[in-house]
């Protein structure tokens, strides 16, 4: 469905001689990489904002036609993405006027590790499931843990930083136990 909706958007962009760039993160990035997850996601999380009102309106109208008005997440830019990710992006060349890029596996793993730790307290384990589909190596897990600690401990001080450090160490042990 999402593919079809993107095709419709692409056709409209071609007709209007317009062009957009998407940096896709989240579940749809895995689908674009043909990583089988057992089911398909319903929305696209893109890091880059789209500011042109007519394009936003077109995206919304496509969503309305297909009964999926939340198919495009414009707010994904608030997520912490590993620095320098742009250099590691992978191009997906299915569309004429949509420059579609997905994060590299190592960057997705970093974001999934962070998401898993911050969301599992609320009982959300889908990030771990996605990690299992990505089959990260020990090194990738260690890199992801490093990224998570460095990015998310920046604003912490004193005992909060120590607590976080302990939690991250436990997370590392847990994940290295899963991804041997």
């Amino acid at each position, binding site marked *: 469905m999402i593919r079809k909706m993107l095709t419709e958007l692409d056709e409209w962009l071609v007709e209007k001689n317009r062009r957009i760039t998407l940096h896709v993160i989240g579940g749809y990035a895995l689908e674009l990489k043909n990583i089988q997850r057992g089911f398909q996601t319903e929305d696209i999380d893109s890091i880059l904002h789209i500011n042109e009102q007519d394009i936003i309106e077109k995206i919304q109208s496509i969503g309305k036609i297909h009964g999926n008005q*939340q198919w495009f997440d414009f707010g994904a830019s608030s997520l912490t993405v590993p620095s320098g990710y742009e250099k590691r992006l992978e191009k997906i060349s299915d569309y004429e006027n949509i420059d579609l890029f997905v994060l590299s596996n190592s960057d997705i793993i970093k974001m999934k590790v962070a998401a898993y730790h911050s969301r599992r307290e609320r*009982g959300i384990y889908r990030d771990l499931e996605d990690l299992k589909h990505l089959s990260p190596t020990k090194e990738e897990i260690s890199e992801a843990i490093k990224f998570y600690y460095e990015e998310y401990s920046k604003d912490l001080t004193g005992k909060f930083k120590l607590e976080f450090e302990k939690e991250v160490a436990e997370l590392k042990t847990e994940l290295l136990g899963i991804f041997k």
Partner: protein
Amino acid sequence: MNLEEFLDNAHSLGIKINRSAEKRRDYIDLESFFLYSTIHISSSIRVARYIEYWAFSFGKYLSVKRINDHIKKGHPYKPEFLNGLLKIIDENFDKSGPMKNLFQKKTGGTKGSIPIVPGFEFKKLDPKWESVGVSAPIFIPDELAKTIQGLDWISKNCPEIYYRMQGISPVLSDIRAYMFFKNKVSLYRVAKDLSLTYACVHQNYKKYLEPFGINVSNS
């Protein structure tokens, strides 16, 4: 019913999952779907969560009698997962409600708890699931809008649930929903496909449908 068919039905019954091809769908038996959900709940964490959200949102509209009838006829289901979903439904609605009657006493006699999805260990367990011998992550339904379709969508696309939401009896609701998908079908066919007696279908039809111009074929 395999997982793919189940997910197609889940999509049709208001779960926000993306299906690759838009197929023209047929009537779906809600109670059968619910029982099949106890089979497919273990297929993945996401599927499990979607099923929990569905039970949380629409479980109150299920017919206890029809679930019981299906079980008596040998419909496949997993008792421990059925119990857990009933707990989710009951907690949201009526702790002493009729869903209690569906609780299955024998749940396999396994020692300890079984994981809702194999291969996962959960840090914080959900007490409802724990109480029925299943280890599952805590269920906090704070992603409802992301997971389940709203009333507007349900009213346009899902007569099976929508008629029940209107307070129509499960039997009449099912007959109406069935006829929404079938053009000029005989009452015999309706009775057969919905596992109802002809007399019951006929009575409901004469009383509630025919006076409003809803017709069936004579064959």
